[in-house]
């Protein structure tokens, strides 16, 4: 699994992107993906619902994730692991890092290329041996 970090920022020091921006770019590729959310801290009108899903360790569809995340104004922390049906290892992981960056890790290089084309501040993640 390879990964990148996105850290596009506003001039006053706030992260310029939100999770919905990433998910919308890769929406066609994640249509059949199920998501598990952990270590979540976020703000927005659907935050409570997402907390409930994360705390209950529910798997949710990309459709529901997109719907809920569209109402989130900021993800401070959170790990979103995407699974294909009947797979026990995630094929895609999106991690919000301390309101400062998003890591995107995947086995699909096309996903990373799509994201590289959309954002400006991109760095490669070191090889991470532990999932």
């Amino acid at each position, binding site marked *: 699994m390879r990964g990148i970090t996105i*850290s596009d920022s506003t001039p006053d020091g706030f992260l310029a992107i939100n999770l919905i921006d990433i998910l919308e770019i890769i929406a066609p590729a994640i249509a059949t993906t199920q998501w598990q959310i952990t270590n979540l801290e976020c703000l*927005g009108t659907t935050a409570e619902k997402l907390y409930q899903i994360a705390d209950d360790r529910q798997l949710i569809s990309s459709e529901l994730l997109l719907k809920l995340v569209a109402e989130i104004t900021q993800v*401070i922390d959170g790990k979103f692991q995407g699974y294909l049906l009947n797979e026990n290892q995630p094929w895609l992981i999106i991690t919000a890092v*301390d*309101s400062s960056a998003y890591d995107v890790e995947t086995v699909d290089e096309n996903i990373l290329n799509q994201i590289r084309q959309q954002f400006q501040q991109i760095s490669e993640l070191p090889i991470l041996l532990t999932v």
Partner: protein
Amino acid sequence: MFTPDRAIHSCYADGTIVFEQQEPKRLPGSNRPLPDSSAIGPHSQLRWDIINHRIYQAREFDSNGYPVRDIDFTSPTYRNGNPRPNHAPPPHQHLWQFNDRQIGVRSGFKRQGGGGSPLDIP
């Protein structure tokens, strides 16, 4: 290269590690950070690390109950424990602002990113 068998989330200034799935429970709030309802005036909320027996984070509120800043006593690492190059070392701070300064509190709040900044000590 150090390759632990457990994923690392963050690290305190003394090198103590917080592993993934051992992050302390988040402070209260959903649409916005919630102040302590019993507090009178400016106050702080503490996020306690029950694994490492210390304060993980402090969140300061002003006299209106608006969040002012977070003080993080850890800094996030890569999963293998290596520090993130563009993140301030612990402890560091993240300031809070209105989403829209023209609208004010009705616009909600946002937390500064940029890897945090060194702690301002009054």
